[in-house]
């Protein structure tokens, strides 16, 4: 294998390779997903009641409510906006604190107007009512006449939804670019018969595959790091994360090379992506729903990419905790590499199969 | 005899490039006109205008009495087109491809099997086209162009890239159609094919028709006839000698040759269409 030729092929791929929709999607879709999930999607399954607040008199109540973790507080500056938000479901309830509300509370004749969203859950209304009452007590200086001790039962490892979606985002970033780019590149070259032309040059099939796989892996790693950064999870155990995601990227690019070697057209590639997505993203789905027996995740090869990432980021564990999964991942990558080598040998011996 | 195709001052531009430069010709019914020329001469553009795929920039084309730009529908219902590039439904079988076009043309009681047998695809009717060889695909393309028993058939490089057996089979089909009374418009840069099949040939070069006549007349007008003799000299060496057949001294030289030399072979040779094309246009057919 000649590194000079591989370098030449990589350079050719970067400057003249497909800069079309596959590359655009490899760059854009993971970022879009990361942004979307972090901004919006996590809200769908949480049970946090949303309270809108219009404080006309700079009440202490606002500060107390802002520090409450049980509700999601949104402040408004006009009754119209508050009412509109309650009307369309942006908030469960909107309350208006009148001028001098704090004084009114002290004197015992305060009035709060509230707009309730018709589709607000009863328990959200109850929760909001409870929190507001509690805030009023705190504001009025009442001394809490009870000690409350909280005891966790069983294995309490609650993960917020933003974090539960992290594996899905990272897997998409690594595997979309890592797989699709080498696969698309190979398919393009086959269709245009340029692969045949390369194969009768000093460049070997192995070198061609190495070049395409390298670019796919680099793109996958970059996108994986970027999505972790967008999700706010790329701040500790950086080297370990890069190692794990690097191996995952290599896995992705190898799978892409295998797909590119066997698939004839882009239609089939995208169809395979739609269909095979379940196999790739299975561990992410298992992680999203703790009700699903977690051992199911072990079946999927991508589990050994995503579990170390989750352990290093969300669970805050160190390198020691991921060694076993890392070793399994290395074994998987090696096994796939053997498969790719076999394909390279077969193609090298049967040059006619290149078209 | 009526004229099936009448072209008057036809022109087409691709941007600044005048691909077809105000050409004029006509084709009688039941005749084969060959359009010869190198790549980029304007042959395919001409075909596209005549078949209604492109609107002429200038001029007029009348097919079977109809103006092709005004009565495109009427023209297209009576022509068949065999394209240069294969454009079959590869996921369908041969018979399905033919039946589709028969339905589009409104052909009643269409016998696709007989047509496929005619082009040598009997037994492969139900196979998907994606499994066909290049020659088989080309035969199917020709079969498709005959689905509606057209009065004019446009064949754009029908034997390009084919083996001699397939080429001959296709040539025979072309001749059969001519015998049926169809007018054939054949574009090619294969001079042998043009010489063999065409009643008249037009030399197209850079958008213009440089010459238009029967192959025989073109050869007579532009060609040179020679006698080529191979004679034995000094024992084993064989030398070629050429005698101009149109010279006043031809008979004397032939007599002298036969008397004085040991003649191994003697045959006549005439100019090829390619030779004539080069002479007329200054370019090779295969440029």
């Amino acid at each position: 294998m000649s590194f000079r030729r591989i370098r030449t092929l990589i350079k050719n791929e970067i400057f003249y390779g497909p800069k079309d929709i596959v590359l655009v999607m490899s760059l854009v879709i993971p970022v879009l997903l990361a942004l979307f999930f972090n901004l919006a999607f996590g809200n769908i399954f949480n049970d946090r009641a949303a309270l809108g607040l219009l404080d006309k008199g700079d009440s202490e109540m606002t500060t107390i409510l802002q520090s409450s973790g049980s509700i999601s507080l949104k402040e408004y500056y006009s009754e119209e906006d508050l009412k509109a938000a309650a009307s369309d479901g942006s908030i469960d309830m909107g309350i208006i604190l009148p001028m001098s509300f704090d004084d009114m509370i002290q004197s015992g004749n305060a009035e709060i107007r509230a707009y309730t969203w018709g589709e607000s859950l009863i328990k959200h209304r109850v929760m909001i009512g409870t929190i507001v009452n509690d805030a009023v007590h705190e504001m009025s200086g009442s001394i809490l006449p009870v000690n409350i001790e909280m005891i966790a039962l069983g294995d309490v490892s609650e993960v917020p939804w933003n974090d539960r979606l992290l594996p899905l985002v990272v897997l998409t970033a690594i595997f979309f670019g890592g797989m699709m780019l080498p696969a698309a590149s190979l398919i393009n070259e086959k269709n245009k018969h340029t692969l045949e032309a390369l194969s009768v040059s000093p460049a070997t099939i192995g070198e061609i595959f190495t070049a395409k796989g390298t670019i796919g892996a680099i793109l996958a790693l970059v996108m994986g790091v970027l999505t972790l950064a967008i999700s706010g999870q790329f701040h500790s155990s950086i080297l370990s994360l890069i190692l794990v995601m690097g191996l995952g990227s290599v896995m992705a690019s190898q799978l892409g090379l295998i797909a590119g070697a066997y698939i004839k057209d882009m239609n089939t590639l995208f169809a395979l992506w739609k269909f095979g997505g379940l196999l790739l993203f299975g561990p992410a789905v298992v992680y999203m729903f703790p009700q699903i027996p977690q051992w199911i995740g072990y079946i999927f090869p991508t589990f050994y990419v995503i579990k170390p990432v989750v352990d290093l980021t969300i669970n805050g564990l160190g390198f020691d905790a991921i060694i076993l999964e890392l070793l399994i991942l290395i074994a998987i990558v090696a096994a796939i590499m053997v498969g790719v080598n076999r394909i390279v040998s077969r193609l090298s011996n049967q040059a006619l199969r290149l078209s | 005899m009526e004229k099936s195709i009448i072209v008057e001052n036809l022109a087409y531009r691709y941007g600044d490039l005048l691909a077809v430069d105000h050409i004029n010709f006509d084709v009688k019914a039941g005749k084969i006109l060959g359009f010869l020329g190198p790549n980029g001469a304007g042959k395919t553009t001409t075909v596209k205008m005549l078949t209604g795929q492109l609107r002429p920039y200038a001029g007029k084309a009348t097919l079977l009495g109809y103006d092709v730009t005004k009565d495109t529908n009427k023209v297209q219902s009576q022509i068949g087109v065999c394209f240069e590039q294969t454009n079959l439904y590869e996921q369908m079988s041969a018979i399905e491809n033919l039946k589709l076009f028969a339905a589009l043309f409104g052909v009643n009681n269409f016998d696709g099997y007989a047509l496929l047998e005619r082009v040598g695809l009997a037994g492969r009717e139900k196979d998907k086209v994606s499994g066909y060889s290049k020659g088989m695909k080309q035969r199917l393309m020709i079969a498709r162009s005959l689905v509606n028993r057209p009065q004019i058939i446009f064949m754009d490089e029908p034997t390009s890239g084919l083996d001699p057996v397939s080429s001959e089979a296709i040539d025979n089909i072309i001749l059969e159609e001519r015998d049926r009374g169809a007018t054939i418009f054949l574009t090619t840069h294969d001079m042998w094919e043009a010489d063999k099949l065409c009643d008249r040939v037009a030399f197209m070069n850079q958008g213009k028709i440089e010459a238009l006549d029967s192959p025989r007349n073109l050869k007579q007008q532009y060609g040179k006839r020679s006698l080529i003799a191979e004679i034995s000299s000094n024992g084993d060496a064989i030398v070629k000698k050429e005698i101009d057949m149109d010279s006043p001294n031809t008979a004397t030289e032939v007599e002298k040759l036969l008397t004085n030399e040991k003649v191994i072979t003697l045959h006549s040779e005439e100019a090829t269409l390619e030779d004539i094309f080069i002479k007329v246009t200054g370019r090779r057919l295969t440029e």
Partner: protein
Amino acid sequence: MNFRIIKALLKKDVSLFLSNRFYFLITIVGLILYIAIYFLMPSEVNEELNLAVYENENTGVFSQITGEEGINIEYFSDKEVLRQAVMDGDYHVGISLPDNIIAIWQAGEKPDITLYYSSSTPTEIRDAMVALISEIAYIQTGQSINYNISQEVLGTDMAGAQLSLRERMRPLLAVVILLMEILTLASLISVEIEQGTARALFVTPMRTSDLFMAKGILGVGLAMAQAILFLLLANGFDHQPLIILTTLLLGSMLVVGIGFLLASLSRDVMAVTGWGMLIFIILLIPGFGNVMPGLLSDWAKVIPSYFLTDTISRVVNYGAGWSDVGINLAILAGLTAVVIFAGMAALRRRYQ
């Protein structure tokens, strides 16, 4: 327009679609997947806070909220049984009151109340229960504060009759099924242009209007058939089926127009699939507004599929009638007409 030619073209397109076993399988599997997703989604809404309370004697501490809407209290006489029930996820939290809690308060001291929670208890509910206990303690010790809340419920009050997640997802899934056909149709057209078979068609008596009609019927047929099947299984036709069918028809036609535009603007099938997926994601955004009310602002209304999703949601989930969704339908019809004509014009140029 020639119906014989349209019929021949339709037969060809259906044959091509069915002969591509992989695509056909993906379509069927996709449909089954969407139906499965629908049925896997929760069909009920748990509106209540479920509390388990342990007390040694009937203290009446929680009497003020017992029977209150939104709170379900079960009393336990055995602490271990309460703990187990909370661990099993039967209750959001378990509250253990100390013995003689009233006496402790009367003595002016602070009793110790234990709050049990498990992994399935969301943090916000846990914290809200702390606030609830505090509130009850204030009341029991005479520290209640007087203030009034005057409440106005905006829109129909659906307390006790909430839309389940499954019902909220229904319009989104139906629209997803429709929108997926953009890719199918655009791919079919693009393949014909790429392979040159479109050129072969154009030298026959077939006219562009015949071709568009055939493609249109195919696109509408594929999209509508799948969407109707899904909504039939998902009880989407229980109310105003005619409005739903009209909406689906307009939606299918919109899909056809977008498919035409996509095929005309894309260089090859790969570009069709790639750009198609981006368009698909954008068109999906309004659907998420139904699942997460309040997520989207008014800007979402510039997306054409908003009027499709919103109409289906309002009819299927809120019982809207013709007068309620008439404007939506009119706008959708107008947008569809524009998109179809634009698509046809662009595709005509591409064919030429």
